[in-house]
């Protein structure tokens, strides 16, 4: 195995929205390498549709403080209000930046950036929906990813495409350690590359692939959190995982909330409009967590549809066909492509789909990774985007705030890293830092066990979906934990077919599975410990929010032996007092 050594001021891992936005702050300023296991334009930012909220007031009165209120309330009071204030205030700059970068926003008749309504975003603290989401047709994420990549091409950013990071490097020990680089595996050659650097920013996205049904790409396997967790960095609030109510049955591709906004109705296998029972006033337009739980209940109580009674229907058949053509063309296309159904005449089989991780690598508002309940900074280490937990989304993210998060905190993280690396010396590391990764890869390449990656992964996904998704109980979480421990044992005996060194995805998928198992375990342990229901975390055995005991963030640590310990830190309060979450 060939080993190459590189030296940079700053290394960014991941080239979706957050990584590219950070790169625009560091490239041309300090020597930067951006490392991605894909090509940048393959990143999952490109799959986002709806919009990016900012109180521009282009079409109606709005203030960033209203946006902040909605975000705090949406977070079920687990979001940190200092960070939420920053995000909602800087949202305006972030949108203007993107426009100056060339993003082709949809426009008002007078040529301003147009804005539209979105779930949970209201005027004057909940009075009525407000037009706050800036958008580019129903391809906002695609446009953001393309635009940021275009700017990186203009800035001549140094990309290492199809390099996968498997380790993070530190200089020093214990409390005095600082980030010093990463070790990456080059897919085209099988060579290892040691990148020593003064700063490292992780922007690796989510980990929806711990679940069977997900809107996430195959490649969203929690690589950044997995690598850092292995090196003793805690993970925050991992039990808060958002399920979007309407994913295409069996596949998980998202069908936008807009379908119900246009009058679509959810029906169970008996044809009943079950949301009438659950939310008599707003019915099918109840908040995401509530609708996802209602669907789960219908299926669990035997009123699902299909041979296995494991889905419900999104019914658009009563809508005028021209309305479907005009307002819902993309999702209609998905339904035709993947189900062979015609949404104008056929009800659409749907089920909740694993969508977004609120938790992740703990950071402060500068994108600096913080490693304990006192928010102690680990110098040189940064994270941004879905893999990070600032926390601006708390227990439940509002729609559009993910595209905002990657832009605001990608920029802040990149800026902070660029300033930091100018002040410190380059780390001096022995060549042996590559050994742990080399040994791990060697072991997998020479494995001769009987277990297969695909089988373990799919059993994990099934168990997580069944026991740790929309609705949880102490019992179901214990079941999940048992399965995870069993799968861990089997993972020790995993083997791969491909022993070659060129585009060996058999190998990389096997190593990714290690991260998926770690993350699943952390999620389940956090969920088991949290004896309340808040936002996306619902416990049937503890069905109320408990602000006295549980208005705090979870931190999960892994020690050298692999044992996981939980700790907690307070939520940063602000001007908005916790209240019951009603819409």
């Amino acid at each position, binding site marked *: 195995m060939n080993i190459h050594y590189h030296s940079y001021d700053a290394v960014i891992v991941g080239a979706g929205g957050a990584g590219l936005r950070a790169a625009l702050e560091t490239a041309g300023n300090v020597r930067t390498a951006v490392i991605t296991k*894909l*090509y940048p*334009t*393959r*990143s*999952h930012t*490109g*799959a986002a549709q709806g919009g990016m909220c900012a109180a521009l007031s282009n079409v109606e009165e709005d203030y960033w403080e209203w946006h902040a209120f909605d975000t705090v309330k949406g977070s079920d009071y687990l979001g940190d209000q200092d960070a939420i204030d920053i995000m909602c205030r800087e949202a305006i700059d972030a949108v*203007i930046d993107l*426009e*100056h*970068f*060339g993003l*082709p*926003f*949809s*426009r008002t008749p007078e*040529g*301003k*950036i147009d804005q539209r309504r979105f779930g949970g975003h209201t005027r004057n603290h909940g009075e009525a929906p407000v037009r706050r989401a800036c958008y580019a*047709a129903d391809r906002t994420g*695609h*446009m953001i990813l393309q635009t940021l990549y*275009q*700017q990186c*091409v*203009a800035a001549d950013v140094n990309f290492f495409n199809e390099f996968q990071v498997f380790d993070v490097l530190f200089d020093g020990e214990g409390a005095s350690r600082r980030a010093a680089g990463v070790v990456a595996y080059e897919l085209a050659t099988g060579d290892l590359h040691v990148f020593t650097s003064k700063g490292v920013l992780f922007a690796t996205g989510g980990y929806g692939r711990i679940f069977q049904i997900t809107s996430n*790409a*195959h*490649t969203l396997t929690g690589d950044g959190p997995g690598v850092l967790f292995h090196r003793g960095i805690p993970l925050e609030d991992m039990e808060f995982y958002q399920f979007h109510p309407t994913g295409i*049955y069996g*596949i998980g*591709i998202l069908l936008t909330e807009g379908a119900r906004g246009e009058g679509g109705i959810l*029906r169970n296998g*008996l*044809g*009943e409009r079950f949301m009438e029972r659950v939310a008599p006033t707003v019915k099918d337009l109840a908040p995401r967590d509530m609708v996802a739980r209602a669907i789960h209940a219908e299926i669990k109580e035997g009123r699902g*549809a*299909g*041979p296995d009674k494991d889905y419900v*229907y999104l*019914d658009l058949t009563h809508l005028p066909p021209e309305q479907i053509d005009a307002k819902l063309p993309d999702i209609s296309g*998905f339904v035709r*492509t*993947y*189900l*062979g159904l015609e949404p104008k005449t056929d*009800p659409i089989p749907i089920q909740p789909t694993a969508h977004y991780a609120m938790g992740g690598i703990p950071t402060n508002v500068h994108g600096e990774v913080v490693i304990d309940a006192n928010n102690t900074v680990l110098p040189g280490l940064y994270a941004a985007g879905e893999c990070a937990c600032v926390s601006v989304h708390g227990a439940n993210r509002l729609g559009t705030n993910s595209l905002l998060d990657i832009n605001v905190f990608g920029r802040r993280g990149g800026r902070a890293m660029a300033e930091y690396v100018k002040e410190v010396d380059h780390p001096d590391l022995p060549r042996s830092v590559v050994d742990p990764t080399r040994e791990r890869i060697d072991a997998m390449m020479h494995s001769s066990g009987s277990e*297969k*990656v*695909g*089988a373990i992964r799919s059993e994990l996904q099934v168990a997580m979906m069944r026991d740790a998704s929309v609705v949880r109980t102490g019992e179901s979480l214990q079941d999940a934990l048992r399965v995870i421990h069993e799968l861990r044992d089997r993972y020790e005996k995993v083997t*791969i*077919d*491909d022993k*070659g060194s*060129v*585009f060996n*995805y*058999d190998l990389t998928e096997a190593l990714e599975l290690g991260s998926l198992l770690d993350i699943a375990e952390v999620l389940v342990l956090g969920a088991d410990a949290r004896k309340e229901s808040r936002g996306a975390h619902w416990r049937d055995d503890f069905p109320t929010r408990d602000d006295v005991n549980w208005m705090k963030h979870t931190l999960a640590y892994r020690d050298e032996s692999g044992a996981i310990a939980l700790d907690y830190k307070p939520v940063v309060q602000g001007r908005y007092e916790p209240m019951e979450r009603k819409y």
Partner: protein
Amino acid sequence: MTTTVQTAEETSLIKEVDVHLTIKRFNPEVDVRPHWREYDLKLKSSDTVLNALIAVKGTIDGTLSFRRSCAHGVCGSDAMMINGENRLGCVNLISSVGTDLVIEPVRGLPVIKDLVVDMEPFFAQYRSVLPYLIADDDPGYKERYQSPEDRARFDDTTKCILCGACSTSCPVYWANGSYIGPAAIVNAHRFIFDSRDQAANERLDILNQKSGVWRCRTSFNCTEACPRGIKVTEAIEEVKRAILYDRS
């Protein structure tokens, strides 16, 4: 109110099918030249070609290499040749492309392993057209204005996901390594016709070179191959006309 709804099985004819795959394989560490391998497996008619490849890799032969990410047609990772036509594996179902499938890497780019081709030449062509907004006016702290009509002028070419299906379906691109290819022209078009951009002339000069638009023989393969429905040939024609008539 209770109404009766049909099940998916009644309306969509999802059924189990026997699928026969013939895949062009090449491993540079072992093979001198590509060779065909055949695989038989049971799938649902609602599965995609990508699902079929994942099933082969997961259950029959883990050495098969192919790129994939989003799996619903927005990331552009999995352009491949399916029964002789360039398509994305993830948006084509067995029920529409058939149960007897011949799968090859796209043409015109060097094959690295199995279905994985070297995308670097493709991205170098993309970079050569200055694919980013160039405007040196100072808009201050506000957005630039753009009318809905001006915005619509280049809407079609903003849809490009850089999958390469168009360029690698083009006979000129296969035959002539120096042709910049439809995808690069599409991405130049996106800026040439953006009212905010000020570098149309530079891009038109680049595309007026002998590697540029005049290589296009209007075969329409690119338009047929585009999984996003971009009118690629029309975009190329618009660039040709701009070179002839609009260049200042």
